[in-house]
Each structure stands twice: as C-alpha cells, then as structure tokens.
C-alpha cells in the first residue's frame, strides 16, 4: 500500500514537472525583445505588448521597389518606458550613452540616444511589429527597426531581439 502511494506521488510529481517544464519551454519560444542595460527597469516586449502602445507608421520600399507600411512604437517611447535618460536628462555624460540593437542572427547596429529622443529630433525611428497591418513574419520579426528618411538602410535591423543602452567607454 505504502509502495503504491509512493508510486502515485512520484507519478503526480513527474506529471507536474513535465507540465511546468512545458510552460517554461513555451515561454522561451515566444518571440520578444528585451530592453536592458542603463535602464531604470528592464522590460520584455512581445509584439502583442507593442499593439497596446501608441502606434506610429512609416512607409518604405523593399529591394524590389514594393512599398510597405511598417507600424510599431517609437523607439524613444520604448526607452522612456524603461526609464532611460532622455529629454531633460539627456545631457552631460548621458550624451555618451548609445543604444545597441541586436538581432537573432548576431547582427548589431547602434544609435546615439539623441538620435532616438523625440525631444532632440523630429525624425521617427520605430520598433515595428507589423508590416501592412500584419504581424511581422518570423524571417523579419518579432521586431524590425525602421528609420524615417534613412537613405541607406542597413540599420533597419530585422529579427530584433534585444535593445541595450550602454555608456561609451
């Protein structure tokens, strides 16, 4: 009887562990971007989270000259929500901070904070989660950087998974 109880308990524990691991794995597979580094609070953003924020859109042509409308949140707002030193705080040594954007393929680009801060510039840079109203496909998302009026576009990083604010050395 005792053996049966132990066996039952072990089975229940195994099942519970299996489901808890499945949950962890499922969470790990949700595409998202982390906002970290010189921030007051680290954030994890999913494409659904971005839909709940004020949206902005930018149209641009792809390499086959097809025009697409990308929509998402202004990068400045994302950083503001994470408590990055922008606007009145963006002075002195804070002007030596930069944003490192990293994609899942290892691609990296940087922006100075002043390039992103709407208090400094009227040029929009967005963290796009949608293209022509549809969530970005896996080969472009979860997020793509879109820069208004950028003549050459290698900084329009695809598959963005992290935004890290750092001090220049």
């Amino acid at each position, binding site marked *: 009887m005792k053996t049966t109880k132990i066996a039952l308990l072990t089975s229940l524990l195994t099942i519970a562990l299996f489901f808890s691991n499945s949950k962890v794995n499922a969470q*790990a*597979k949700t*595409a998202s971007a982390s906002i970290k580094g010189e921030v007051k609070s680290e954030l994890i953003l999913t494409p659904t989270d971005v839909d709940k924020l004020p949206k902005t859109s930018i149209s641009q042509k792809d390499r086959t000259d097809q025009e697409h409308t990308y929509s998402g949140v202004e990068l400045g707002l994302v950083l503001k929500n994470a408590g990055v030193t922008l606007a009145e705080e963006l002075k002195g040594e804070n002007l030596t901070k930069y944003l490192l954007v990293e994609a*899942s393929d290892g691609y990296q680009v940087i922006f100075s904070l002043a390039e992103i801060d709407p208090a400094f510039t009227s040029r929009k840079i967005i963290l796009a989660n949608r293209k022509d109203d549809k969530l970005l496909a*896996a*080969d*472009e998302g979860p997020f793509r950087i879109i820069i208004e009026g950028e003549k050459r576009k290698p900084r329009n990083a695809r*598959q963005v998974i992290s935004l890290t604010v750092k001090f220049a050395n």
Partner: protein
Amino acid sequence: MNSFAKVITTLIGSFTLLIWVGKLDPAPYPLTYPSNFGNRISIPQNNPTTQAGVYLGRNLFYEPLLSANNKISCGSCHEQKRAFTDGKVFSSGVDGTLTSRNSMALVNLLWARRFFWDGRATGLEAQAAFPLSDPHEMGQALTVSAAKLRQSPKYPILFQKAFGDTAITVNRITMAISQFERTLISADSPYDRYLKNTYKPSPIELEGMRLFNTMPQPRKKIRGADCAHCHGGAKTYLELFHNNGLDEISTDKGIAAITGMDSDHGRFKIPTLRNIALTAPYMHDGRFNSLQQVLDHYSEHLKQKHLSPFLKGSSNKIGGTSLQLSAHEKKAVIAFLNMLTDTTFIHNPEFSNPNHP
C-alpha cells in the same frame, strides 16, 4: 680562469638562471595585425597576452596529457598545415566516437566573441573547457588534467613564469590555451598584400573579388555573388549566425537547439574565409568536399524553408531562388578564395608543436 673564479662564475650563473626560470615573465606578447582588421578585439582584463602565457598555452595546445587516453591534443583536430582544422568530416574523440560537427578553423580568433558552430561559448576561455572535457573529444575532467600536469617535470615552472607561481589550476589551463589561440593571426595572404598594394591580382582573381563583394541586382544587370554580406571586410569575418539553405529540415537544429526559436532552425556560425582553400570539408557537417561544391550550393541549391531572409531572392536571375552564377563566375570566385591562403600563417614556427620543431 682559476678554480675559484670558475666556482664563483658557476654560482652566479646558476643563481641568475634560477631567478630567470622562476620569475613571472609579464612581457606582453606583441599582437600585430593590419589596421584594417580594426581593434574590436577580445582580451579579458584578467588574462592579458604575455610571452610566457602564450608559450605555456602553445605547449598545452599540443599536450596529449590533457586527454583521457594521453593520445589526443587540441592540435590533433586543429593542424597548423590545414589552418588548424583536421581535414575530416567529423573528428574522432578518445572514446572512438565522432564529433557531431566539423572541426572549425582557428584563425583570427582575437576578433571572435562567440564560439562553436552554435555560438554557445562566449570568450575563448569558456570555449577551451568544452573540447577538453567532452567525453567524445578529449574526455578528461579539467581537474584531472591539472593533476596530471602537476606530475609533469616541465609544467610547474612554465605556469610559474606565466602566472607568478607554480599552481596549476583549471582556470590557468584554459587561460593559457586562450592566450596562445589569440596569437593565431592570419594577415599575410595575397589578399592582404593586395590591400597593401604589394600584390597584383590576376584578371580572374579581380573578377572573383568583384563578384564576392557585389550584391546581385538583375533588374539593373549587376551580377554578383554577395559573399561579402556575411564574409565581408578585411578579415572576411562577421560574427553572424545564419541558415544558408543546406536542408529544408535540418537534422542538426543549430542555435535553435539552444534558443528554442523556430526562426533559429538550422542557423550556424558564419566561419571566416581566411585560408578557406585549406579547410575542406565545408559546412557544419562537412558535407562539401570542395569549394566548387560550395559554390554550386549557393548558385543552384538553396533550400528555402528556413533560409535566412537576406538570402531569399538573392539571385542573378529575376525571380531566382539561388545565385545562378555561370561556371566562369564560380571559377572566378574560387580564384579569389584562393587569394585568402596565407602560407606564412601555416608555416609560422611560433604556432607549431614545440615538441616537434
């Protein structure tokens, strides 16, 4: 010289030798490289590259005592004459089994930050621990390696010179090997000499170089192979991870096995093309025996399902799904790739086995 003078001279000589061999030798190892390689190098603050550290690391790199059967060293799968690869599809470990991936070239690691085909190790020190202790590679716990080295007559003094005392620790083993690996700089190929205006490429090499660096734009009648997209710059190395269309469904999931992300399926580290003509077979699973086969793959056989986005539609034909290079263009690209062979590097005596000069 009378006998008293001989005794004094011998004593002074012995004393000097004793101080010399027993002292920490902090002389930095000069890491020299062309300015166009850039200075985005990775050397941890706690492991500066010193002459004594590099010499110790070189000895350890070729030391079979670091393997469970005392027969395999790092140099077994990373032979200098093959730009530190082994010419095999997969390498044999101490237990006789084969590795699951192809041995990677050890070239210009000073500029690398993530290691292995799946980038799982950050920094050379972390990387070095894997093959040493993997049961299918050298198969020996680092603590056992440290114990074996303590019994060897030559190592305590080499550790003292490198680190200030004779302690042989796990960390010091990987630190010294990393110091040696950072010195493996290849920067004297015909391509380097061309960049310094001391080598005149042949017409076909120049054509290959142009194709290598050009993105195809068939609508503008611009032909290219766009290799530089991932292998660009003077180092022909960018630290990127891509799916290059080898399989629709890859049996080896690459970095997806670590991240769990479907978008990472079949993604592997983009290797340097330095000395690429010496490092066959190619790809993470060594499936291609020749550069011709590699060019044929990019030209005609890219599998689309998980292909990295920049490769989708990259073609010399409007609507094409692979590069569609001509036979002559492939020959030209291969001619350029051969310009990346650095014979100075593969014959540099500072990189060779110190026990077999």
